[in-house]
């Protein structure tokens, strides 16, 4: 039998992701200062701080309500571009958890895919536009591929994590089509997209957390 995450486990992951984001403040701020307006870290960090405060409430909910609640908190606390994108992502993901009590391997893949679709729809963006999508999209593609190929969960989690991290790194070479970097004369080429980096932090933390429980 594979991994199984409860709403309490997911709340536990939130705590770890919050810590990961908290640690990387100066780095992420520098990235958004180079290509945007410098607030991405402070926005998303504030969002995760609020999520951590809400953990007692979140872990008592079923998965559907928990994801919806996370989406609402992120949307209102983070604000800016990434708030509404994460809000849409979590509300989109909640739908695939409607009657589920636990998250298993296939659910996890479905969750990430629902998030990707919601973000792409909300932001009217595609892979290659130098956004958070460029970390999430390769992760989803990889996840689907691993399941199709019947790889072990351990292997899958490790490959998905690498895909997210590599995807974030790949934004350095991209020209921005969405987000503030597209107002730059060089379209941000040479700089990592901050939203892709924080997306990769979350996927990395999530994959590591699940892997540690196998």
């Amino acid at each position, binding site marked *: 039998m594979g991994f199984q995450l409860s709403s309490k486990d997911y709340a536990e992951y939130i705590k770890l992701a919050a810590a990961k984001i908290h640690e990387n403040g100066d780095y992420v701020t520098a990235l958004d200062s180079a290509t945007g307006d410098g607030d991405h870290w402070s926005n998303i960090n504030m969002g995760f701080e609020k999520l951590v405060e809400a953990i007692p409430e979140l872990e008592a909910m079923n998965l559907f309500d928990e994801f919806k609640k996370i989406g609402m908190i992120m949307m*209102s606390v983070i*604000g800016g571009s990434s708030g509404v994108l994460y809000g849409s992502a979590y509300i989109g993901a909640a739908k695939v958890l409607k009657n589920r009590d636990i998250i298993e391997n296939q659910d996890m893949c479905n969750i990430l895919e629902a998030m990707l679709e919601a973000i792409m729809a909300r932001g009217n963006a595609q892979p290659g536009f130098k956004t958070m999508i460029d970390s999430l999209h390769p992760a989803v593609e990889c996840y689907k591929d691993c399941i199709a190929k019947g790889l072990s969960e351990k292997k899958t989690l490790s490959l998905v994590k690498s895909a997210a991290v590599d995807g974030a790194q790949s934004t350095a070479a991209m020209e921005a089509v969405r987000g503030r970097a597209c107002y730059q004369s060089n379209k941000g080429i040479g700089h990592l997209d901050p939203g892709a980096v924080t997306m990769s932090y979350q996927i990395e933390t999530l994959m590591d957390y699940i892997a540690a429980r196998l």
Partner: protein
Amino acid sequence: MKKIINQPNAVVSELLAGMAKAYPELKHIENLEVISRKEKSKKVGIVSGGGSGHEPAHAGYVGKGMLDAAVAGNVFSSPSPDRIIKGIEEANSGEGVLLIIKNYSGDIMNFSMAKEMAEMDDIRVESVIVKDDVAVPDSTYSTGRRGIAGTVFVHKIAGAKAESGACLEEVKAAAEKAIANIRSMGMAMSACILPAVGKPGFELCENEIEIGMGIHGEPGVERTSIKTAAETADILLSKILADYDYSGSEVALLINGLGATPLMELYIVNNEAEKILSSKGIKIYKTFVGNYMTALEMSGCSITLMKLDKELKELLDAPCNTPALKI
């Protein structure tokens, strides 16, 4: 960082509280950071908003003849959908609500999400997108042009149309007409400091200016050496006039300060802008000079033109009574 503030994270709610205290006809909805009119009337509601740091925009334009509610995000960050929904609710008197959105992806995403959610609550919501900044190429592929100071004209036109008793579609059409006729171009001479960040996002050397700088400190199209007022007016207007044909028409002219540029300099720029426009046979119907859409304490200015027809003239001249604009 030399700012007269308390906690960097509290600036938005404190500034709006201070504003509501100064103007008793306005109300501040705490936590959701909405400023709305206390007195309501049955008409199409007009809502605008965006990141803070552009004061008097947007809350300063709430009042009779302009906005019914303004929704504030954190400094330079779009407000979240829940705030915008509150603004829509405040502005709605049953005749529907028009959202005036500036063309930033963050604003578009948050306002669209709010629009969808308000529509689920059976409020009729329409939106228009201001994209007046000719510094950025117009494009259907990317987000395209930013909305900057020209937004103030859109507030005025839409607000006057709504006040006249027009229906939602008519108000939207007037706003769209204004948007189609507005072009702006700006330049900056110094950076600004986000309260929560504490240091400037970029540096300009002594003698260096940036042409086409956005109102969030996004880089412009060219760094060059400091210019005279005459040259500055010429550079900005040339870009505008190359983009849209204003020849032979009547225009509204806005010389907008970015926050730290003294009114003295804005008037000197106006003196030059008038000479250039007159020499090209463009007639100035009405001029606005001041800090209408700022970028914290950035220094610099922008020039905006709006081509006028009979309807737009009437709407521009219609009375309005807001903290930042009274006609």
